[in-house]
C-alpha cells in the first residue's frame, strides 16, 4: 500500500468500503468511480486462471522491460505479458486504479466465511458474475443482508436478473445489439450497421452504477437503509436510445439509421470529410445559413456554392450527397488541424476526427486540463491513466483513489486487508494461504 488515506484531504466517500467482486469491464467501471471519490474499494480475485480477471490477460501489455521504478519513461514497445505475471496488462491498469487487490478463494468454505466477515462492515458489495453464481455460493443478497442489513448489493448482468431471461449470458456487444444501440449506428440501410467499436454498454452502466451506488450510500449514511440493485446493460441501452423509441410510438415507422447526418435539425452539411493524409477526417456541423456562408467564404466562395440547390438548409438537405462531394473536393486538399482552426475562427463547429495519438500527444485542451494522470504501479512503474472529466472545487476527483496507485497487483493488498481490516495474525494468514484460501 502506498498512500496514507488521511494525508490526502477530504474525499466525498471517506469511510466508505466497497467489496468488489466485479471483473471484465462493466462492473469495474462503477467501482473505479467510487475509488476516484475516495471509497476504499477491495477487489477480490483468486489465483486460478478462471478466477483471475480476464482483462489481466488482454493486451496491450507493458513492455517487457518496464519496471516498478520506471514505467513509460523507459520507452514504449509491444509487450507480451510475462509468464507468471498477471500484472502487466495496460487496459486492466487503466480500468482499476485506486483499488485494493486481494486473493480469496470463494470456492473454499473458509474463503466464503472471510468474505462474509468483510461484508459485515462494508457499505456495498458489487458483482457481475453470470446470473445465479453468488446464490450458488450462498452469498446472494438475501444471505448477505442477514449478516449486514445495511448492505447495498449491486449486480450487473446483460439482460437483468429479474424477468424471463434471468439466466441468459451476455457481453457488452450482445447487450448493444439487443438493445438497439448497434442498429442506430451507421450508414442508412441496406448498409449493415457499423455499431460500436467497443463495448459501450460495458461503460455507461458503470457510470449509472456509480450514480445509484452513491445515491444508496448517501441514504445509508442518513438512515441505514440497505438496497438491492439488479442492473441491466440492455436497459441502459434503452435509456440511450429513448428518442427513437418514443418517436416510433407516434409515427409507427421503423427506426432508421442516418450515418453522420442530422435529421432532427436543419443542419447541413453535417458529416465527416476527408483531409490530407491516410484516414484523416474532419467533422463539420453547419447549423445555420450564416455558418454556411462562413464555410463557403473559407472555401474561396466557389461558384457552385451559390447554386440554388445549396441556398437554404432545407435545400442543402435535399441535395446532401452532391453537397458532401463538393465539400470533400475542398477538404481533401486541406491539412486537418489547420482547417479546423480556420473554420473555428469563423465560428463554425468543426473538429478533427481524433485518433488515439491525437488525443494523447496533441490535444492541447486535454493537456491544459490535466486529463491524463500519471500513477505508479508496483510492478510496471508509472503510466498515464485516463482521468475524470470534471473538476470539483472541494472534493476533487482523484483516479488514484485512497491507494494513490494505478491498479493493484494480484493479491497485492492481502496483508493490509486480512491483517489490518480483519485482524488476522501472520500465523493465521500463513495457514490460510497453505490451505488455498487466501
Amino acid at each position: 500500500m502506498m498512500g496514507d488515506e488521511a494525508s490526502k484531504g477530504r474525499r466525498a466517500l471517506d469511510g466508505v468500503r466497497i467489496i468488489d467482486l466485479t471483473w471484465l469491464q462493466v462492473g469495474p467501471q462503477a467501482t473505479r468511480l467510487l475509488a476516484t471519490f475516495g471509497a476504499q474499494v477491495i477487489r477480490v480475485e483468486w489465483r486460478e486462471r478462471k478466477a483471475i480477471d480476464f482483462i489481466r490477460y488482454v493486451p496491450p501489455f507493458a513492455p517487457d522491460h518496464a519496471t516498478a521504478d520506471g514505467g513509460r519513461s523507459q520507452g514504449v514497445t509491444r509487450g507480451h505479458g510475462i509468464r507468471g505475471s498477471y500484472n502487466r496488462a495496460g487496459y486492466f491498469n487503466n480500468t482499476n486504479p485506486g483499488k485494493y487487490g486481494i486473493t480469496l478463494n470463494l470456492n473454499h468454505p473458509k474463503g466464503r466465511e472471510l468474505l462474509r466477515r468483510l461484508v459485515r462492515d462494508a457499505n456495498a458489495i458489487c458483482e457481475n458474475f453470470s446470473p445465479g453464481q453468488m446464490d450458488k455460493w450462498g452469498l446472494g443478497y438475501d444471505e448477505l443482508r442477514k449478516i449486514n442489513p445495511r448492505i447495498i448489493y449491486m449486480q450487473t448482468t446483460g439482460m437483468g436478473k429479474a424477468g424471463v431471461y434471468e439466466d441468459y449470458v451476455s457481453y457488452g456487444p450482445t447487450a448493444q445489439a439487443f438493445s438497439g444501440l448497434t442498429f442506430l449506428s451507421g450508414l442508412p440501410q441496406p448498409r449493415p450497421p457499423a455499431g460500436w467499436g467497443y463495448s459501450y454498454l460495458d461503460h455507461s452502466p458503470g457510470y449509472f452504477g456509480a450514480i445509484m451506488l452513491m445515491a444508496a450510500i448517501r441514504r445509508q449514511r442518513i438512515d441505514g437503509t440497505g438496497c438491492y440493485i439488479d442492473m441491466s446493460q440492455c436497459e441502459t441501452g434503452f435509456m440511450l436510445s429513448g428518442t427513437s423509441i418514443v418517436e416510433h410510438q407516434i409515427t409507427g415507422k421503423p427506426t432508421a439509421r442516418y450515418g453522420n447526418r442530422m435529421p432532427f435539425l436543419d443542419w447541413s452539411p453535417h458529416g465527416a470529410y476527408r483531409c490530407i493524409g491516410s484516414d484523416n477526417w474532419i467533422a463539420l456541423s453547419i447549423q445555420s445559413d450564416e455558418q454556411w456562408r462562413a464555410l463557403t467564404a473559407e472555401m474561396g466562395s466557389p461558384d457552385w456554392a451559390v447554386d440554388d440547390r445549396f441556398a437554404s438548409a432545407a435545400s442543402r438537405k435535399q441535395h446532401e450527397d452532391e453537397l458532401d462531394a463538393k465539400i470533400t473536393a475542398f477538404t481533401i486538399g486541406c491539412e486537418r488541424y489547420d482547417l479546423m482552426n480556420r473554420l473555428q475562427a469563423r465560428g463554425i463547429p468543426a473538429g478533427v476526427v481524433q485518433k488515439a495519438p491525437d488525443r494523447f500527444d496533441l490535444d492541447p485542451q486535454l493537456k491544459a486540463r490535466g486529463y491524463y494522470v500519471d500513477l505508479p504501479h508496483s510492478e510496471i512503474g508509472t503510466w498515464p491513466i485516463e482521468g475524470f472529466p470534471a473538476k470539483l472545487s472541494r472534493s476533487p476527483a482523484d483516479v488514484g483513489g485512497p491507494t494513490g496507485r494505478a491498479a493493484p497487483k494480484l493479491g497485492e493488498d492481502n496483508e493490509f486487508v486480512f491483517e489490518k481490516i480483519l485482524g488476522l495474525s501472520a500465523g493465521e494468514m500463513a495457514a490460510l494461504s497453505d490451505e488455498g484460501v487466501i
Partner: protein
Amino acid sequence: MNTDGNLGNSLAGLTIVEIGDQLGDYAAMLLAGLGAEVIKLEPRDGSASRRIGPFASTAPDPEQSIFFWRYNLNKKSVVLDVDDQDARPVLAALAARADIVLLVGEFETVARRLPLWRELAEKNPRLIVCTITPFGLDGPHRALKATDLVQMALGGIMAVCGYDPGKDGEYDTPPIAPAMWHSYHLGGEYAAVAMMAAINFRELSGEGQFIDVSVHEAVNTCTEVAIPTYIYSGVVVKRQTARHAAPNITHMRLSKSADGVFMLASLSPFERELRALAQLADQVGIAHVLGTEEFVQLEKDDHVAAAIYRNDLLEQVVESLPADELFKRAQAHGLAWSPIRRPEENLDDPHFAARQSFATIDHPELGRDLRYPGTVASDGHAPHFSYTRRAPRIGEHTDEVLSRLRVPTKT
C-alpha cells in the same frame, strides 16, 4: 423503511435548478428519476432543446419536441429570463433554497452567468453549482464551437466506429458517430456522478462546491482500449464493422438470419462454444465435421482453414433460423448471440415487460400514453428510477414555484 431499498425516492427533498441547453437535460433528468425536484428555468419561448426534433407535430413546435419530452421527464418548468436584472430576486431566492444549480451551455453563456452564482453561493455555502460546457471552463479550446458530431470527433469515439477498410487496408467509408446524442449522454452521466459525489461530500462536511464538467473529456473517457493500446504499445487501433476496434482486422461477426435480420454471432476460443455450435448445427440438420478426427486434423494442419470452416458453419446455422428463435436456441447452449434489434422492438419483449423497463407516461394533450425507457436497474420488484410525469410545457409550473418562493416579480 422500504426493505427493498428502492432508489426512486432516494433524493427526495433535494432541489435542482437547471439553466441552459441540451447538454444538461439528461443529467438533471437522471437525478429527477431518483426523486430530486428539478426546476427548469426557461426563456419565454422555451429552452433550446425544445427546437430539436423529431417532433410529434408536422412542423417544429417547442411543445412537440420528442427530444425535449424524452430528456425532461418529471421536471417543472418556470419561465424566467435569467439574464434580466429583474430576475435577480427570484434567482437569489432559488439559490437560498436549492441544493444544486446546473448551469449548462456554450462557454461564453456559462462564463457570463457564473459570477452571479458565485455571489449567491457565498450566501448559501451548501449550494452545489455544476457547470456543463463542451470543453470545460478553462484551457485553450474552452470557447470552441461544438455539436454532438464535433464532440464525438474530437473526443475519439468516431475514430473507433465505422466500417472495415478495403482489401488494400484503406478506408473508403468515413468514421461514424453512433447516432442519438451520445456526447450529451456521456456529459450528463458524468455530471450526475459528480453531483452525487458532491452531495455525498456535503453530507460529511456541510459544504457545497463548484463542479466543472467537460463534455470533451467525458467523451474521451469512453473509447476503451484505444488510449491504453497507444500508450503502452504505440499501436493505433483500427475501426471495423460492428466489432471492436483492434490493432488488426478481426473476423466479421455479422450474418443474416433466415428472416433477414442481422445477427451478432461469433465464437470465443473456448471448447464449450465449439461444442455448442456443433449441437446447434445438429439440431437444424446441417452436416459438419466438428468433434471428429477430421476436424482435429484440420486444426493441426491448417489453423486458418479450420477457423474459416467454423465461421462458415456458424453462418449456415444463422441463415437457417429466424432471429428470435436463433437467439433463444443459442442462449440455451450458452452462446451470447443476439439479433440486431431496432430500439422499439424491445417495447414488446416479455423480459423487459416483466422488469417494467419502460415507464408509461400520460400525455393528456395527446389523449394517450407514451412509453419511455425508464430505468437501468430493478430492486427485484420495481424499477429503481421512477418516472411518472411527462416533460413540462413552457412555464407550466411558473406560478406554483414562484408563489412558493414568495418573491414579488414582474414575470
